[in-house]
């Protein structure tokens, strides 16, 4: 199974461990990832307005590269990139006028030939969680992870088409395949504040505090995420966990799901 791989800027630096553990686990599982030769930042957020064409160029150019390399699937890791690519791809496929305008600027015409997938999706649909369970060398029995989905992986439902938005289960099924326990808590899809932590720290810390307290109260030992910004927010505002009256202050580490996958595969 071959895929064109789009890392995105964060995966090469601040989230290097996410890339490294993805590449090592993919190799171990027989999944062939080929990094796109020339890529730029995808723009981090899907443009929400109807009159900005330039924001689409970077993701469409990357999709053209994947097509040029003979691949029909583009794989992303960062939830931000995944959201941008999947929504852009759908917009190009469905909006003839937008497609015409974008292609007027590019060297080749892109018609939506490539599919956009997330590594988690690939593990579920292309490999299968049952097969993954068979390949596990070190079962993570007794480990209690709180799956934290964030927003960009799932919303909007019709465009992302990955899982249910209110009660998704893909992380839970993934953890189950590794032998680990997934903690059930009501804030697994509540926004972490996203980019608010760049300029509006008070609001971000309130948003994160709710998630941390809920996971902790429900027995979580750590978090599992798929987004570098979620990881940053959950880690940075952990002092909220140390609410008034609480004496023991364990830290809740935040792992990319590929880190625990690598551990389960004994890599």
């Amino acid at each position, binding site marked *: 199974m071959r895929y064109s791989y789009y890392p995105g800027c*964060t995966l090469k630096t601040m989230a290097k461990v996410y890339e490294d553990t993805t590449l090592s686990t993919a190799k171990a599982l027989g999944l062939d990832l080929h990094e796109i030769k020339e890529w730029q930042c995808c723009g*981090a957020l899907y443009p*929400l307005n*109807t009159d900005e064409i330039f924001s689409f160029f970077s993701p469409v150019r990357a999709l053209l590269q994947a097509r040029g390399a003979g691949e029909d699937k583009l794989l992303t890791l960062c939830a931000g990139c995944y959201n941008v690519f999947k929504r852009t791809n759908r917009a190009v496929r469905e909006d003839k006028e937008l497609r015409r305008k974008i292609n007027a600027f590019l060297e080749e015409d892109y018609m939506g030939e490539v599919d956009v997938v997330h590594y988690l999706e690939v593990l579920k649909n292309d490999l299968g969680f049952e097969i993954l369970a068979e390949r596990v060398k070190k079962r993570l029995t007794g480990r209690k992870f709180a799956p934290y989905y964030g927003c960009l992986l799932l*919303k909007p439902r019709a465009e992302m088409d990955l899982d249910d938005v*209110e009660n998704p289960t893909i992380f839970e099924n993934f953890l189950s395949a590794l032998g680990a326990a997934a903690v059930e808590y009501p804030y697994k899809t*509540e926004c972490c504040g996203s980019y608010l932590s760049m300029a509006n720290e008070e*609001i971000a810390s309130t948003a994160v505090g709710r998630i941390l307290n809920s996971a902790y109260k429900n027995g979580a030992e750590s978090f599992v995420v798929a987004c570098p910004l979620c990881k940053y927010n959950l880690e940075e505002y952990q002092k909220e966990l140390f609410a008034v009256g609480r004496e023991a202050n364990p830290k809740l580490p935040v792992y990319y799901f590929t880190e625990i996958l690598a551990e389960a595969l004994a890599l």
Partner: protein
Amino acid sequence: MRVTAEEINSTLVREVEEVSGQKVSACFQCGKCSGGCPVVLSMDVLPHQVLRYAQLGLVDKLLHCKTLWICASCQTCDSRCPQNVDIPKVIEALRLLVLRNKGGNYLHPHDLSAKVLKNAPQQGLVSAFRKYAK
């Protein structure tokens, strides 16, 4: 408060509708958006109120509210709206009405704290500047 026909038919509302691709009249004020918004407690104008102000043509009030800069674009409102009004797109259109004016930027590089500059992932920085500056 008096609202005249002139305000309701304001060209600013038409501009918001064009840039967002949404019809503000589709909102019937059920409030599910505000009920699900994770940062609603910090807002001065709630999501469903943003739609109401737009319906009444009171766009100028919206251009000066805090809400535009507190929305995290999480799409929770959008995922719950029974009328399929894409509220993040409406709020984005209002933000752009502000940003596209000279000196309209909400965030400048010198606003970032030392901690953010040191530890924040690029994904966060790019997202913030995409939303808060032009």
